[in-house]
């Protein structure tokens, strides 16, 4: 079996983000690391975040930093990754690529504790960079310019100290003195030697300054001082005239200003009033904002509260450190303050947000200061505050994030054309169920009813230079309606259009006149209001029209073509006639090329299943240039011109191209390349779009021409980051559409469907899914689909939180307390508290109040996905949490389908895994499955982590025991068990009489249940100790699994072994066969092996397109979705493996990780071709594309066609 791996949705979580001016000049970009993807984001003028570029680097990005050489206008990007190399990248604005400026190897690859890459620190003046490991090693590289002003990098200088653990590093701003780097370090050498543990408990963290002596080219430890043991992060303080220099040490409960030769300035971090006393407050992310006259820091705590930290200083002396409550937003992994007044918060879990500053926290608020810090006998006096609504920030945009995907199922519950992906995402209060549908999201701007059922719609400008459209023209069966676009859209009658007849086409012709084609003739409306009318000869009517700005071709009934052109005076002149052999099905004229008078090509589709290209040149008018036969009569034709590009904002290097698209009556979109000179057609591709013949329309997307195809659902063909993408839109069936541009909506689409006129815009280009999110209460763990009722049953649980009732009670109490405060002291509570009382703070933003870590809350939910309503929610009591579930239908028992839920009471992971009890609850469904009722609950001796139905009974994995239960009156009845599993059973899948058991640490075990003996036998297991995170049954002998190191693998029982086991009529063999070393007698073979680079949490076999082959879909913790498609032909395997090989050689990954080494990080990659690498082919420079194509004996076009084809097989 050979598989093609393709990422369907890139990681949506963000691990770290930095901002800088990577394109140079004033504009600022945000560089985000999404695990293995590096992406550049920029907020556009409307405050929407746009993705400029996203590159898969085939490695793990661990840290990012940006620096700027003194006097330069542009920032460079430094990447610390698992490649054992430091990489400096430069953003190339013209080509829209990241160019590798330097790549220096310093150590082994992989994420190791001793190999640098985990931490990056930059000298604020851009003279040096420090790259550190978690332990021991730190390297400093000197950055400089050569005579041609190119960036140079020195050989590394070592700043190693063995037996130390590093927590954080940062550069110290000391102006143009020697660069200094600060690090929080912990020396464990004594603790390592001391077996009593006393040294370990006394170990002390230190803040160490390392100085890079530029003269001596040497790094030395300059200064070291004790810091709090809770110190976890360092923040650079501006220096060299801008500020006092030094660092802020963020520690548990404190922020401390430190510098060499300066006394500590310490202030306490304010705490929430409802925080339990034993919990500290830690800073998790920080951002510094510097202006000419001032600077401040924004620090975010682990609870999401942002504090503004200011330093009151007198030159180098810091007098006071103030920490003022700023706002509360969801906990972020990185904060970026942009110069344009935006704050980008890359959320730890859930959607990322872009905020705009309303104020910078100058208003009075709760503040802690070093000057008022009180030390009592019990320690420092804490400062309390109460979170409030956003005051200084306002959210203006958000980017969706699925991180982490906890569980996922692909199912067509809504009975749509394509199945939906149901995924459980997020954590705690930000968790959600997201329903993903393949396709682009649209936002509907307006819907208005029309007096009849319209057949077509157009928009026209009054002048070719106008920015916005002037009229919307709607055609009905026997009338035409003209609407003028202004502040409002209203009907007009003075436009000059004939309104008593239906229209066939309406467009701007020449520079400033309008044309209406109706069955009886052509009406030409000049700018000054003069109207010229051309009438059809005899009783013939016009049936089809094709036009561009200067040319019009009409087709009369019977198959005659008449060609008109706009002459110098703006008149429409009849130039040629041509009789075709039969009726004409459709027409289109190519757009007028830049700098030309007319276009040369006319495409004519006929009912004899052909498309002809006719010439419109004066010397060979109406000559047939080429002819193409197609599978079915064409219904609609569209020329799409792709301008030549050398990369730039949104495209790759490619020459100008003209494409002819045809929508055929059998629902296929047929696309060919038209030779710009000869008009010959080549490189045909076809794709099935839907059950209706696609109608094609040209619209504008991001300033470029794009194509809208209306079949049984709408599709958009557009170019995104150099790729031509054809994606469905998540919208209903449309009849006719036109592009729409007005004041309110610059790039929209107006369409008719039924008797309504709809105006909408297309959002988030480049994404392959659009989502509907339904918020959940706690971290979702698992879900199942009720087989008959199509309801989702899910379990949610959280550790260290309060139950809903307790939270409600506490909230009420605190509001009451706040109310009393208001009565007593009106000044402090100035903004309307009544309003706050009415809508209490959302948990989604503020998080849940924290409880002790031993407390669990959990609930079981029944959710109807169609109405998105929760029909039943059972909160578990007594510190119980649900871990597994399944639906089960006990044979010859009266209840029908039941729900089994495995729970644990008082589960603790630290200091040792322990629990009070485990249970299996059995619920029955009532009221059409909408409500659950507890039937009974059975105590078991372990935590049931896996449940499954098997032959009308319940199989449960309870710790290392696999047990078969039957339903009893008061409890479950144990019928059979096998205790020979090594660790803990986490997944159970069944097929016929085989049971495929996944162990937490030891991969799969194949079992068989023998009814005649009532015994469970393990007959095969895996040789590799895999830490299983997801499992999926593929076929009778094959299982697919994913381990926690980010590998996906398939195991298969060899055919002869499988046969032997199946043909064991006496049953003696399976009973007496013994394995070696306590293993099973037979071993499964690994047939597929691939490193995804992200922890796969769920696997499912499904097909995402109607009638497509099945593939294996996976979801990961970083919020990405991918698929493995089995190849069906040996030729394809050969082709793609060669393409992959060439790409590996010619186009090594950006951050220096060897592609093959990456995909083989844990086990050598086997029989999987990396589609993500193959899909980088179109982004290669043209000559390299040609070179690779030559070696494969193909053309670049053919390769791209292959890539497109295989992608279309998956989605």
């Amino acid at each position: 079996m050979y598989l093609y791996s393709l990422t369907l949705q890139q990681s949506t979580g963000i691990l770290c983000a930095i901002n800088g001016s990577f394109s140079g000049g004033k504009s600022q970009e945000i560089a985000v690391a999404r695990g293995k993807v590096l992406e550049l984001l920029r907020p556009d003028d409307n405050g929407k975040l746009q993705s400029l570029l996203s590159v898969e680097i085939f490695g793990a990005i661990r840290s990012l930093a940006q620096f700027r050489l003194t006097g330069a206008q542009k920032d460079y990007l430094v990447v610390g990754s698992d490649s054992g190399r430091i990489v400096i990248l430069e953003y190339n604005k013209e080509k829209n690529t990241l160019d590798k400026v330097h790549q220096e190897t310093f150590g082994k690859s992989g994420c190791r504790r001793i190999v640098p890459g985990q931490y990056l620190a930059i000298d604020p003046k851009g003279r040096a960079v420090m790259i550190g490991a978690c332990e021991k090693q730190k390297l400093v590289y000197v950055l400089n310019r050569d005579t041609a002003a190119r960036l140079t990098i020195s050989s590394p200088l070592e700043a190693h100290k063995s037996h130390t653990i590093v927590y954080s590093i940062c550069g110290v701003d000391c102006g143009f003195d020697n660069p200094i780097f600060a690090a929080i370090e912990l020396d464990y050498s004594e603790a390592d030697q001391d077996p009593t543990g006393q040294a370990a408990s006394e170990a002390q963290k230190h803040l160490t300054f390392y100085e890079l002596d530029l003269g001596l080219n040497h790094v030395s430890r300059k200064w070291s001082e004790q810091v709090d043991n809770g110190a976890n992060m360092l923040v650079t303080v501006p220096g060299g005239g801008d500020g006092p220099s030094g660092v802020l040490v963020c520690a548990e409960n404190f922020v401390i200003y430190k510098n060499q030769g300066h006394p500590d300035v310490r202030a306490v971090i304010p705490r929430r009033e409802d925080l339990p006393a034993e919990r500290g407050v830690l800073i998790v992310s920080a951002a510094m904002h510097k202006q000419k006259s001032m600077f401040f820091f924004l620090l975010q705590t682990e609870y999401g509260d942002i504090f503004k930290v200011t330093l009151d200083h007198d030159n180098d002396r810091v007098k006071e450190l103030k920490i003022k409550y700023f706002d509360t937003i969801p906990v972020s992994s990185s904060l970026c303050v942009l110069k344009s007044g935006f704050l980008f918060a890359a959320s730890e879990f859930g959607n990322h947000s872009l905020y705009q500053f309303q104020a910078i926290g100058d208003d009075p608020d709760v503040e802690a200061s070093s000057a008022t810090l009180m030390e009592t006998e019990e320690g420092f006096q804490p400062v309390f505050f109460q979170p409030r609504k956003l005051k200084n920030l306002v959210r203006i945009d958000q980017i969706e994030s699925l991180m982490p995907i906890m569980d996922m199922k692909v199912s067509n519950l809504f009975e749509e054309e394509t199945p939906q992906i149901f995924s459980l995402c997020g954590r705690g209060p930000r968790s959600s169920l997201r329903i993903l549908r393949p396709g682009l999201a649209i936002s509907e701007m307006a819907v208005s009813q029309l007096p009849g059922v319209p057949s077509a719609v157009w928009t026209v400008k009054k002048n070719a230079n106008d920015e916005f459209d002037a009229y919307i023209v709607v055609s009905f069966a026997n009338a035409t309606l003209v609407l003028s676009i202004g502040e409002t859209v209203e009907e007009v009658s003075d436009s000059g259009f004939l309104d008593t007849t239906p229209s066939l086409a309406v467009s701007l012709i020449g520079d400033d006149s309008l044309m209406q084609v109706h069955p009886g003739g052509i009406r030409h409306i000049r700018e000054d209001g003069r109207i010229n009318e051309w009438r059809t000869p005899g009783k013939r009517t016009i049936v089809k029209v094709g036009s561009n700005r200067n040319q019009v071709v009409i087709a009369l009934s019977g198959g005659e073509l008449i060609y008109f052109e706009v002459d110098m005076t703006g008149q429409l002149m009849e130039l040629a006639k041509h009789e075709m052999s039969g009726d004409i099905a459709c027409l289109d004229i190519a757009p007028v090329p830049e700098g030309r008078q007319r276009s040369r090509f006319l495409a004519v589709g006929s009912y004899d299943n052909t498309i002809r290209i006719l010439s419109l040149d004066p010397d060979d008018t109406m000559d047939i240039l080429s002819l193409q036969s197609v599978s079915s009569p064409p219904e609609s034709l569209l020329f799409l011109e792709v301008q030549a590009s050398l990369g730039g904002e949104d495209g790759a290097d490619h020459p100008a191209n003209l494409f002819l698209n045809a929508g055929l009556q059998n629902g296929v979109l047929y696309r060919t390349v038209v030779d710009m000179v000869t008009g010959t057609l080549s490189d045909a591709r076809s794709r099935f779009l839907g059950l209706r013949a696609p109608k094609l329309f040209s619209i504008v997307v991001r300033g470029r021409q794009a194509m809208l195809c209306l079949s049984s659902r709408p599709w958009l063909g557009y170019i995104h980051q150099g790729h031509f993408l054809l994606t469905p839109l998540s919208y209903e069936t449309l009849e006719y559409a036109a592009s729409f541009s007005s004041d309110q909506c610059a790039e929209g689409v107006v369409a008719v469907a039924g008797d309504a006129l709809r105006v909408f815009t297309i959002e988030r280009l480049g994404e392959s899914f659009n989502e509907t999110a339904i918020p959940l209460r706690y971290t979702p763990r698992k879900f199942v689909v009720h087989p008959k009722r199509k309801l989702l049953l899910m379990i949610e649980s959280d550790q260290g939180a309060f139950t809903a009732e307790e939270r409600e009670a506490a909230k009420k109490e605190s509001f009451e307390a706040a109310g009393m405060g208001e009565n007593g002291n009106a000044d402090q509570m100035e903004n309307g508290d009544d309003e706050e009382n009415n809508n209490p703070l959302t948990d989604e933003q503020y998080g849940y109040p924290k409880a002790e870590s031993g407390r669990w809350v959990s609930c079981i939910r029944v959710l109807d996905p169609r109405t998105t309503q929760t029909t039943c929610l059972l909160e578990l009591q007594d510190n119980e949490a649900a871990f597994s579930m399944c639906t089960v239908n006990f044979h010859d028992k009266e209840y029908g389908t039941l729900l089994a839920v495995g729970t644990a009471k008082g589960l603790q992971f630290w200091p040792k895994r322990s629990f009070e009890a485990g249970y299996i609850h059995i619920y029955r469904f009532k009221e059409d499955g909408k409500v659950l009722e507890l039937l009974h609950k059975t105590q078991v001796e372990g935590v049931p982590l896996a449940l499954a139905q098997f032959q009308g009974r319940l199989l449960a994995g309870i710790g290392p025991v696999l047990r078969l239960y039957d339903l009893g009156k008061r409890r479950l009845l144990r019928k059979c068990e096998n205790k020979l599993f090594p660790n803990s059973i986490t997944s159970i899948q069944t097929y016929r009489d085989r049971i495929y058991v996944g162990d937490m640490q030891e991969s799969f075990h194949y079992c068989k249940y023998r009814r005649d003996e009532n015994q469970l036998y393990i007959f095969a297991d895996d040789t590799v100790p895999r830490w299983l995170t997801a499992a999926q049954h593929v076929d009778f002998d094959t299982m697919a699994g994913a381990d926690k190191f980010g590998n996906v693998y398939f195991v298969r029982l060899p055919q002869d072994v499988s046969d032997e086991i199946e043909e064991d009529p006496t049953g003696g063999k399976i009973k007496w066969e013994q394995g070696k070393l306590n293993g099973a007698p037979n071993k499964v073979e690994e047939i597929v092996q691939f490193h995804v680079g992200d922890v796969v949490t769920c696997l499912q076999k499904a097909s995402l397109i109607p009638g497509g082959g099945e593939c294996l879909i996976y979801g990961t913790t970083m919020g990405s979705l991918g698929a493995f498609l089995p190849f069906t032909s040996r030729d394809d395997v050969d082709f793609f493996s060669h393409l992959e090989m060439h790409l590996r050689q010619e186009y090594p990954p950006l951050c220096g990780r060897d592609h093959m080494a990456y995909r083989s990080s844990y086990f050598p990659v086997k029989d999987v071709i990396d589609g993500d690498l193959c899909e980088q082919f179109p982004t290669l420079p043209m000559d390299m594309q040609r070179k690779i194509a030559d070696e494969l004996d193909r053309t670049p076009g053919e390769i791209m066609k292959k890539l497109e084809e295989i992608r279309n097989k998956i989605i």
Partner: protein
Amino acid sequence: MSVYGGDSWAREAQHRKRKVDDLMIEGVDSSIYKKLSSGNFACLVCPTNPVLDSPTMLSTHVSGSRHQAAELRRKNRDLAKQEEVKKRLALSDCVTAKAPANTAAKQLKSTSEPLIEQARKAVLDVISGKVALPEVKPTAANLGRPCVGDNGSNAEPVGVEAKLKGVVREVQPLNYRLHQERELKFTAAGWKRDCHGRWFKDENVEFDSDEEDPNIVLNEST
């Protein structure tokens, strides 16, 4: 080779080598050699079982004359064995099956796994009701209620049914299957049998308070 140095070329080379190895082996029938844990290959055909170091050597060995001769010998032996199996199978079919019309067709299929094929056939026959099983019935009944006197009970239900429906032969095989299915249900539910054929509860299995007792149920039913 990687432009940026490092060790990547070695990996590529190794990959290529593995590819070549795979290709070398592809042509060789996997049943004639065995891959050893050391990575060497043992030829299973030659009587001396020579151990070969690499796939290339294996493929050379396979095309060698000595191996070819050994293979031919083995083939002959296999053929003879198969003949023997066929013969025996045909004999056994004659004894058990009463419909010898399609035995020839079945034999063709059943050459590889005679036992399982035979079992399948037997099951098929039982299900399709081809076998009336007059001789099996008393034994099954014996198994079901060994403690009850043989003569009376054996005749009685048949007599009752005969009176009720008048057709005994057609009901009988189904009854037998039902009976077996019930027995299986009881074993699956955790009942076991002692050496007298009496049912008892497995001590490791839990039972409902009103669980049916097979000693009673099975007796009543027959």
